[in-house]
């Protein structure tokens, strides 16, 4: 019996896989979504389990974590509650050169990393899409802002973004629900920036995929504060809260968890991907699934790994890799240049409720028409203000009843700026298959070669100085600038292993995320990115995915694929 042929196979069910599933099924395609990990539903969410119901009250089971998840625990969200949403490092190994550490932080489950993502969403602009061309670095993006703008609109209207419109050319406004509010401490810093750097440095509330109003059948945020543990009111966007249910509602979705994709099946005669080889996550049996079109939405590194593991005599260095660029140009935002300080904000005020969002300062370096820095590109800041709580008791002299009473009042106002900088594309940052090592399903793993260059570190150094300068302008005291020495991967914004471009000789994908070499193969996760900008990338992946789906459906209708 020949297996059923689906219209489309989507590999991955996270940020982009959920979007591909929604768009393709809504266009009428019978779509199979293959997810490597287990099923997750809102019944797995734990955001309302208080510390006293956790064995270690939130200190985490550190011995178990160090044994099972020594790499994943580097992510702030991999804690006593949410570590179940991160992979076991022994089942999911990878290798690096000893002097080039890379943190590969992963969630293999239905919903992928969209369950624990940071939820910050910022559009890119032509400052970003034209950057490589302007600087003569790597290759030009095959698209411009005008190509993606309607797709940003489309995605934002569905997922719901709260934010403030600013009218800044480097950070286009979107379809916003009402913004969350800045607290008193943040208002003080915002006003100081407006006074000292009018029109140049702007502090706004974070634009985030968290609802401030009921939206598309999902409830507004109730400010419990721990989105990365899930959300039973579906108030932040992830694929199991929004896109996968929409896909399921069409009746065209088949979602298969525990389906670890090994490689793609190439039909040389037709020059098409015929289907997908899968290792069943439970039984470890090999399976095959067939489809007219295949979307890789497995993440930057996993999609590259699948293509590299799909080498054939015609594509000896990886499927769809006639350019030789597959696996290359790996990038991740550099993060961790900034400053902290204590600010003079109203002592008789404090924020109430746990707002799962902070502030944002859009890029202000190397803007078009502005002064040029000694480095290329720029950075933006996240961060925020808050008051010290009971934790300050450790350093507050005294004990007993009066001391306990003193801790009831909030302590000093603190403020932190935390920079995220652009990472330049570099052919020498790349991944390859490590033939000496397999994962728990017998699939060869990646060897990752990646390190930051001088420009990235120069950005973070400048980010720490500029942050200290802004805190000083806001009248802060005890200002501590810092530059964290984070390895790449830690920002979990990895991009660029199968870049888009106009020329098949220098890029893997065309301007519609379609493989130059094989027309029924699309890659729409972070692998497609040609540069990183400094904004959080997920909204751009989602918009590119929706755009690619629209193109693929059209091409199928036209019988091109």
């Amino acid at each position, binding site marked *: 019996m020949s297996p059923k042929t689906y219209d489309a196979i989507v590999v991955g069910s996270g940020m982009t896989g959920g979007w591909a599933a929604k768009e393709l099924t809504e266009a009428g395609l019978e779509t199979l979504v293959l997810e490597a990990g287990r099923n997750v539903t*809102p*019944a*797995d*969410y*734990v955001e*309302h*389990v*208080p*510390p*006293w*119901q956790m*064995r*270690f*009250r939130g*200190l985490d*089971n550190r*011995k178990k974590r160090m044994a099972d998840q020594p790499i994943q625990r580097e992510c702030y969200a991999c804690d006593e509650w949410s570590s179940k949403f991160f992979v076991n490092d022994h089942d999911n190994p990878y290798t690096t050169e000893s002097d080039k550490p890379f943190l590969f932080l992963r969630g293999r489950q239905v919903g992928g990393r969209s369950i624990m993502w940071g939820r910050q969403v910022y559009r890119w602009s032509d400052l970003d899409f034209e950057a490589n061309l302007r600087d003569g670095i790597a290759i030009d993006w095959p698209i411009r802002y005008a190509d993606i703008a309607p797709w940003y609109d489309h995605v934002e209207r569905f997922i719901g973004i709260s934010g403030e419109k600013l009218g800044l050319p480097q950070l286009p406004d979107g379809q916003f629900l009402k913004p*969350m*509010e*800045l*607290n*008193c401490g943040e*208002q003080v810093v915002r006003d100081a920036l407006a006074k000292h750097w009018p029109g140049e440095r702007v502090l706004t509330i974070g634009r985030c995929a968290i609802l401030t109003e*009921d939206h598309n*059948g999902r*409830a*507004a*945020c*109730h*400010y*419990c504060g721990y989105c990365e543990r899930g959300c*039973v*009111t579906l108030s932040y966007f992830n694929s199991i809260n929004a896109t996968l249910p929409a896909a399921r509602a069409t009746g065209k979705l088949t979602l298969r968890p525990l389906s670890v994709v090994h490689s793609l099946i190439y039909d040389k005669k037709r020059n098409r991907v015929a289907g997908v080889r899968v290792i069943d996550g439970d039984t470890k049996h090999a399976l095959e699934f067939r489809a007219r079109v295949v979307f890789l939405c497995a993440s930057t590194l996993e999609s590259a790994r699948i293509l590299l593991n799909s080498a054939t005599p015609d594509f000896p260095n990886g499927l769809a890799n006639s350019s030789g660029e597959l696996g290359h140009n790996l990038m991740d935002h550099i993060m961790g240049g900034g400053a902290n300080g204590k600010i003079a904000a*109203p*002592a*008789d*005020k*404090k*924020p*109430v*409720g*746990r*707002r799962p969002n902070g502030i944002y300062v859009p890029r202000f370096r190397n803007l078009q028409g502005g002064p040029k820095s000694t480095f290329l590109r720029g950075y933006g800041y996240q961060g925020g203000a*808050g*008051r010290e*709580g*009971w934790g300050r*008791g*450790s*350093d507050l*002299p*005294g*004990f*007993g*009843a009066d001391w*306990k*009473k003193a801790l*009831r*009042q*909030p302590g000093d106002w603190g403020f932190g700026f935390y920079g995220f900088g652009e990472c330049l594309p570099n052919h020498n940052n790349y991944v390859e298959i490590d033939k000496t090592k397999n994962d728990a399903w017998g699939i060869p793993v990646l060897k990752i070669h990646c390190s930051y260059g001088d420009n990235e570190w120069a950005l973070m150094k400048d980010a720490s100085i500029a942050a200290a300068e802004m805190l000083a302008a806001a009248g802060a005291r005890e200002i501590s600038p810092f530059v964290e020495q984070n390895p790449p991967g830690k920002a979990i914004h990895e991009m660029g292993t199968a870049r888009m471009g106009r020329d098949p000789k220098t890029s893997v994908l065309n301007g519609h995320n379609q493989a130059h070499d094989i027309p029924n193969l699309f890659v729409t996760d972070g692998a497609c990115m040609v540069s990183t900008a400094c904004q959080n990338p997920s909204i751009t992946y989602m918009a590119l995915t929706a755009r690619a789906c629209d193109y693929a459906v059209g091409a199928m209708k036209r019988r091109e694929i």
Partner: protein
Amino acid sequence: MDRRSALGLLTATAAAAYAPDELLSLGRSFHQRILNGTRRVLSAQQDATLLVLTDLILPATDTPGAKAAGVNAFIDLLLAEWVEPEEKDRFLKGLADVDTRARAAFGKDFLQGTPEQQTALLVALDDEAARWKASPEATRGPEPFYRNLKWVTLFGYFTSEVGALQEEHYAIIPGRYVPCAPADTLSPSE
């Protein structure tokens, strides 16, 4: 699901409706057991000493104190399962040192002292810890036991059910964000 019905569902049954049952019941029975039961690392003497020390740091006032929060039992759990062997040794040595100091000061173990004697000893430890904190990092010695004790007392208390709910007025579901509320609002700020 609209916001009202979603929140109604949540507040009616709190986390129980959605948290994995086994996790909740495990947590409950576990914490009940450590509240009532014997200790796995601490001797009866050490446990009783910690009970007095932690309750002096965070006594019952108009809200329950460290004793009611079972901070001593939480410390026993950390010593049994969480800390590295050398951290455990250091903590227990620090605890033994409290008795050494007590015998030097008033000729008895800490537990056998009067409340006044116990408080006076704690004042000395607290002053010492403050001096340590104020001295240059490069030249000061290892962190005093008392700082460890004070931190774990704070943490154990404020993450306990009584500490979080009655003293901090921690709300699992605040339901709103008020950016500039009066500082004495009885609701979480973090």
